[in-house]
């Protein structure tokens, strides 16, 4: 049942990515429309706008959440693809270890970046 549980979270993560990724797209590409997320005008990735968003706690929280679900969704998908290439039990265990370790490292680094930006 474990694989079905992972698959369930994979699907749920996909739904969450749709929402948070959509929000990210709106922030990045519709900044001129509302000016909501880019209060200083100009490009969404202009330093002032980035700093302003980072100061609001909701953005780091949502970005860390998006990072987490995207890493899980992507790495679980990669795991499935690699498993289907046909590999033995030992190789599967190695793939699991590498992907979990890599995912945790990337999550930690990305979370640190978001938190550090908030603290600036």
């Amino acid at each position: 049942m474990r694989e079905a549980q992972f698959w369930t979270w994979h699907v749920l993560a996909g739904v969450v990515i749709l929402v948070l990724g959509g929000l990210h797209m709106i922030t990045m590409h519709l900044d001129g429309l509302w000016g909501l997320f880019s209060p200083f005008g100009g490009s969404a990735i202009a330093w002032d706008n980035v700093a302003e968003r980072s100061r609001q706690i909701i953005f780091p929280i949502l970005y860390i959440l998006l990072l987490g679900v995207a890493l899980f969704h992507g790495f679980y998908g990669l795991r499935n693809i690699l498993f289907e290439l046909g590999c033995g039990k030992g190789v599967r265990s190695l793939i699991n270890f590498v992907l979990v370790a890599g995912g945790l490292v990337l999550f930690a680094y990305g979370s640190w970046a978001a938190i550090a930006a908030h603290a600036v």
Partner: protein
Amino acid sequence: MDTDSKGTKDILFVVRRYNPETDGAPYNQEYTVLVEPGMTVLDGLHQIKNTQDATLVWRFSCRMGVCGSCGMLINGKPTLACNTQILHVTDRVLTVGPLPNFEIIKDLIPDLQPMFAKHISGRPHIHRDDWDPRAAPADEYYQTPEELIRFLQFSYCIKCGSCMAACPTLARDKSYLGPMPLAQVHRYNVDTRDGGFNERKKIAGGSAGVARCHYAGECSNVCPKGVDPARAIQLMKRDLVFSYLRLKKRKGVCGTIGPAPHAKRREGVPDPPPYTIEQKG
């Protein structure tokens, strides 16, 4: 290739041959067969064996599409030889080979034992926790027409192996259970007479189960009986998600028309036959 006024024509059969005792690798052998309208691939193979090459071997039985024995790769599609009219699929060349994704025993005969072993692992029988119907048969089970429809389509499976041959996941990962075993797991899970969902979900939800299916749909595309195993697998994914997230309570198993399961055997109800396999516990 001439066609006469009755529609009879010469068709070139390109048949995959392989004898593991004498051949290093499979090879193609060509035969010209005089085909009449209505002749099936199975008829063509019989004609070859009777008039040209008695060494050609394949499985067949009912010759009417209900036993599943003659599953083979015909013009690149896994299907039943008895169900495929030659002139419906070609007017020149017909390629015939054994089902892919299986080891070849000889010529057109695949080794289906791994498929049957996977099928058995899914516990494809009515399972109840309340009592063993074989030990104390009480009365008939009763089901509504709606309950019957939920599993009826999937019970049409004749275990021909065509879906297994068409599955792209199985082509790369032999540990995957495959469309037929998983469709049969779902067939029994949704049968209201059955109470074995919790046992089977360990198989279906495991590393070789439904999570490996990417919904290519080729299994349903080739199924000669309209079973739609792809649909069964997707429905089972839904059931497993609902079970894991506790979103839907499963109904209990249906009872019988007659007395309670543990009631004394009614007069006239015969003793059950002896078990044919050793009972544990």
